[in-house]
């Protein structure tokens, strides 16, 4: 009854085969998770080798949403490329945009006025909270608590509405430009941020009552999907995934961009690198983001929000590199220009790509349900992996 088809086997790595019989006479089998599967968060395909419910090996298959963004970038102008990064990690679209803008700024020597930098920091932090809220919701849902999904979205919706007021879009923002942003914040921005912070503090306590302290969650996440520190570094993991394993890597803190060096905030670090730590790190990060938001809105400068617009963005020849901390980790833009209006080669390093590559090590030996938990705490965005 259960046999892997030959086409599948041909696309698997060498040495990946079934053991016909185990020591106790049992048989292993393959399970195809995805590309259409509710817990793969998009169109990721995992070929799982199972022994009963126990996961023996996981092989991720990518490319089900590979949209050739890097190739397209070679034929679009630098400013047009910004809007394509919206569609990579769509939950960190502001931050992605910021990364491209920073690379262009570095290349052309454009500075950003105070207010512009503050807008950037505040919007980035709001985006981070927004992304983590959505993650919290879908984490709950992946573990079977459907209501949390709705609660997470309910809080997120407030931030999304603010973004809509800010730039007219809810998801694909295209707001930042080299030298600032495409428009100033509306007058209602600061009061709205304050309101959101208030609501969020209440909501986070509710979230703690619902999931953080829930014994079922603790049972299901403690000691599950452990990623040791050395392996996390070796795999190039970043963001909450790496920090949960104790890797002290946060671009905001260690090579601060924009004006992050002016704010006080902590980088939460986990000890065990298991699912619970990843969960906890993200919850804590939301609180830290609130801290940054409070500090930033207290000292919001009145200066112009952007610097003088260049007549065109003809980037001098050379290669440029900028990195930011998105909600998922280290996002880098590497662009090569040949003194033209369009990049010669543009490459985006996506945090999810490296984070996902560690999945086999994390999930081997666990149950299928653990695999779902691990996928959920990795918080992957498949279009960001595939680009």
């Amino acid at each position, binding site marked *: 009854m259960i046999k892997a088809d030959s086409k599948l086997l041909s696309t698997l790595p060498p040495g990946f085969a079934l053991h016909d019989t185990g020591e106790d006479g049992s048989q292993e089998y393959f399970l195809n998770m995805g590309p259409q599967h509710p817990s793969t968060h998009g169109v990721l395909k995992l070929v799982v080798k199972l022994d009963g419910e126990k996961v023996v090996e996981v092989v991720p298959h990518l*490319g089900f949403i590979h949209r050739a963004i890097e190739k397209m970038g070679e034929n679009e102008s630098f400013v047009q490329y910004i809007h394509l990064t919206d569609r990579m990690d769509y939950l960190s679209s502001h931050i992605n945009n910021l990364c491209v803008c920073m690379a262009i700024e570095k290349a052309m020597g454009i500075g950003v006025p105070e207010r512009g930098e503050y807008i950037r920091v505040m919007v980035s932090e709001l985006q981070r909270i927004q992304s983590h809220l959505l993650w919290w919701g879908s984490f709950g849902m992946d573990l079977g608590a459907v209501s949390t999904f709705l609660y997470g979205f309910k809080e997120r919706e407030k931030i999304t509405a603010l973004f809509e007021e800010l730039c007219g879009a809810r998801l694909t923002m295209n707001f930042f430009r080299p*030298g600032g942003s495409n428009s100033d914040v509306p007058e209602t921005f600061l009061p709205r941020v304050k309101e959101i912070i208030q609501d969020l503090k209440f909501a986070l306590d509710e979230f703690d009552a619902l999931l953080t302290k829930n014994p079922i969650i603790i049972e299901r996440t403690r000691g599950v999907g452990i990623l040791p520190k050395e392996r996390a570094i070796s795999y190039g993991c970043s963001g909450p995934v790496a920090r949960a394993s104790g890797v002290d890597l946060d671009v905001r803190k260690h090579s601060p961009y924009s004006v992050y060096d002016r704010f006080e905030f902590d980088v939460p670090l986990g000890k065990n690198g298991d699912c619970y730590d990843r969960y906890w790190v993200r919850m804590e990060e939301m609180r830290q983001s609130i801290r940054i938001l409070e500090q930033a809105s207290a000292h919001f400068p009145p200066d*112009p929000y952007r610097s003088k617009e260049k007549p065109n963005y003809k980037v001098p020849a050379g290669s440029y590199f900028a990195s930011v901390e998105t909600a998922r980790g280290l996002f880098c833009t590497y662009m090569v220009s040949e003194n033209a209006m369009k990049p010669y080669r543009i490459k985006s390093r996506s945090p999810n790509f490296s984070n996902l590559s560690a999945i086999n090590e994390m999930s081997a030996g666990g149950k299928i349900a653990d695999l779902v938990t691990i996928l959920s705490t990795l918080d992957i965005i498949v279009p960001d992996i595939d680009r």
Partner: protein
Amino acid sequence: MIPEPPKSPIPVLPNTMMNPVDWVVGWARANSLWPLVFGTSCCAIEMMATASSDNDWARFGLEVARASPRQADLIILAGTIVEKMGSRLITLYEQMPGPKYVIAMGACTISGGPFYYDSYSVIKGADRLIPVDVYVPGCPPRPEALLYGVMKLQELIRKGAWRNSLTHKPIYREPISDLMTKCAADWEEKEKKKQEEMKEAQERFKVENPDYKGYVIKRVVGPKFEEVAPTPRPERGLPQVELFNILLEKFPALGVYSVPEVTREKIAELGNQYVLDVVVSREDYLPLIRFLQSDERLRMNYLIELTAVDWKDHFDVIVHLLSIDKGHKIFVRCSLPHDEHPEIESLSDLYAGANWHERETYDFFGIQFKGHPDLRRMFLEDDFPGHPLRKDFVDPSRVVVRPY
């Protein structure tokens, strides 16, 4: 105030008489659309926002989202469909029991949207694979827009499109073409005729109004901004010169990219913001990386990315490394000849993460990595012709070249 929506005619089948049973069945089908859990990218988030408390598609009876296509009535195509996903989408559609409906949500699924030009993998409209009933434009559409699309579909079902157990719509079969050029060419033809007809009138007008200046539309002047000097941000870790000195001790033949005849002074001049970009020969590539990783002063234990650039006459393989504890970065670059299968040593023994980065580079550029445990294509199907990020890649069957 929201402007009135445009009226679009409902494609009702001809000669259909409604009897009460049909009416009831139509009503039931229209009000019980169970969507398949299917989202590929950004639109999926907006689809979930439609399901969320704020918009609550449960009001329409849509909240029974099924993970199994066997129980679903409706696919909301939320997000781009690429070639690799295409066959899976068709399978999903075929697994659904009839009557089944499809809503194409967002620009990508309607026409390829932002990925229409230059993309070698995106399907230019999901209706080339499966019949689509309702198109909801936007990128992504607001939840309200999706709900409006659902209401449109309900109207369609109620008015008789449900009669056919599958769907009344054919699959869109027009070949992909450059829409802008086509549009302009069509217009030019029309314009030629029109100009010929108008020639006399234009000449008459010239004679009658010799001093006609035309209508001038004022330019809108936006706010003016001052130029701002960039603030320098020092990089963490070892200064570039020191880094370079350490490397020169062991690898004297080391060059630096875009700095001909490199000297220590030249590196020092480049300042703090500059990240050292060393050029290494193929023989020294692996030893250099190993040295960078293992040397106590450097400890570059984190591989940020590994990629390549096609310079038409050669490839550059570029490795970005970072030291987590110390914070300094370095770019290592190694030239390879521009032939069918250029080869370089694999870093997958040193960095576990290099495995996937190298597979990606192999997929995009066709660069072979010697000693890689599992060098398969990463994103594209195994039978995809060529390596798309090479500058000489052409594939007219997939790619529409941008006209401007």
